[in-house]
């Protein structure tokens, strides 16, 4: 099955297609929000991209609210979620139920996080959120190349029947995923990240869900805009390129394409203008950030490999004739993948 036809539809700038893939049909017009997902091929024959697009579309077309539970590395957190969409716009609100109180709002790729305790609101534009589904095109179907998909059955989650879909990596450089996709809409109601042994590293699931809930977009929009009493901060990031910064990977890590490169202000209040470079890669499902800083003995160390749920971190010193650097590789990937990145790093002449 080829996606070129589908890709061309995307390039043409049409509304994201929910029509059957790879078939000679015009894209379906965006249905009203309460319509079900358009008819597609039988579940058992869907490709991985078809599954992913269906899951993505589901959240763009429905309003829902529920309680989400995240289990990661032996810790749990939960939150209350509201989601509503209206043609092109979607708004989400996430209220933390555990830990430090915080409210997160998202409108498309604009995100603002309110911290009631510190009275600080952090406003960001997260380009990474707007990338899908172009992702399928930009990674040259890396997802298909590096993962397989099969439906393994059905299960009920939060009162809804869901297709259970197993996404397996074709190599050891990435993790496996098990996705519970609500049968009618495709909405992801549960998602597990699994290691090479099939152990669950992390799980995200709705413990309670109300589809097509009466969520008011106006109310959420008003709440999101209400920053009174809060100090609003916007992190200063500047786009750059690895090449411009003098870095390259002598050997790409299979499947992972460079996505973007950013300069960030110094972390943790370090004195001076020691900013951090963040070089971002993705294979379509997993992503890795390579953080590069000028090495400072006072601030940096110890070296090592750390894990929290599915997220692994490799931190080490790196030096060549250009100087001493501190690398931190972070990603939802196995340790060896991070090692591959770190080893492949090279400073240009």
């Amino acid at each position, binding site marked *: 099955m080829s996606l070129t036809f589908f890709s061309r539809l995307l390039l043409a700038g049409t509304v994201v297609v929910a029509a059957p893939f790879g078939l000679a049909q015009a894209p379906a017009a965006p249905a009203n929000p309460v319509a079900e997902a358009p008819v597609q091929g039988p579940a058992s024959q869907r490709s991985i991209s078809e599954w*992913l697009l269906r899951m993505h579309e589901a959240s763009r077309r429905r309003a829902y609210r529920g309680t989400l539970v995240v289990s990661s590395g*032996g810790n749990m957190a939960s939150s209350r979620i509201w989601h509503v969409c209206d043609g092109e716009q979607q708004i*989400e609100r996430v209220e933390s139920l555990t*830990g430090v109180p915080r409210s997160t709002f998202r409108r498309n790729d604009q995100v603002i996080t309110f911290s009631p305790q510190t009275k*600080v609101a952090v406003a960001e534009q997260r380009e990474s*959120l707007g990338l899908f589904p172009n992702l399928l095109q930009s990674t040259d179907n890396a997802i298909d190349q590096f993962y397989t998909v099969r439906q393994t059955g059905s299960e009920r989650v939060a009162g809804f029947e869901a297709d259970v879909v197993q996404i397996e990596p074709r190599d050891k450089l990435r993790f496996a995923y098990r996705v519970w996709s609500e049968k009618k809409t495709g909405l992801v109601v549960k998602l597990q990240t699994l290691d090479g042994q099939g152990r669950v590293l992390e799980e995200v699931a709705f413990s309670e869900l109300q589809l097509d809930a009466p969520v008011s977009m106006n109310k959420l929009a008003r709440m999101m805009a209400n920053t009174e009493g809060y100090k609003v901060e916007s992190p200063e990031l500047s786009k750059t390129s690895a090449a411009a910064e003098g870095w390259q990977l002598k050997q790409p890590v299979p499947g992972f394409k460079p996505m973007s490169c950013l300069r960030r202000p110094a972390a943790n209040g370090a004195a001076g203008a020691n900013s*951090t470079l963040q070089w971002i890669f993705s294979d379509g499902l997993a992503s890795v950030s390579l953080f590069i800083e000028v090495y400072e003995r006072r601030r940096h160390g110890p*070296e090592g490999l750390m894990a929290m749920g599915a997220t692994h971190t490799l931190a080490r*010193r790196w030096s060549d004739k250009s100087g001493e650097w501190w690398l931190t590789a972070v990603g939802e990937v196995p340790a060896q993948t991070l090692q591959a990145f770190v080893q492949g790093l090279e400073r240009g002449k």
Partner: protein
Amino acid sequence: MTQQVSTPAELVSALADGELRGEALVQAVQWLQENDDARANWHAYHLVGDVLRSGELAALGTNDAAFVARLRSRLQDEVQFGQPGSDLPATDARTESLQGLSQHEVANDASFRWKLVAGFASVAAVVVVGWQLVVGVNASSGTPQLARVEVLPTQEQAQVMIRDPRLDQLLAAHRQSGGISAFQMPAGFLRNATYDRPAR
């Protein structure tokens, strides 16, 4: 809420009462560490409080500076945090607070706890992809061996947990800009908004 204009000394007083938040909190601690007089105040305020509550604590107040000076020189002999080689803490100081970590603790900490999978004093050897470090949680086990082993520790191995605010900040940056995944919508984004903490 209007911001109060205060002298640094007044901030130290408020800090001693745990009444500072956010920016002011960080600034006050910074001030304390850079300024001798501020630390003298920190000591005096706490001493006064202790004495007001119980006169007998006054007996100890005369010796405070000497106590801290003695401790300071001993601390310098300790492995410093944030330095290479300090990754594995001594285990003889296990306290009751470590007993029976439950399987699912509520993640209500202001900062994350990371599981230390493998610490190594220096990454001298070039590690080829496909070879992985054997997990060496016990510092006394010597140099890490290279072997073809799954890196994730098995259940039997001791879990050393660390906190690293710097790492938490990088994680936040990774989530913010780097979480590029087909799963972002909705699962990935919701997961981050639920689980993550705003970086300080």
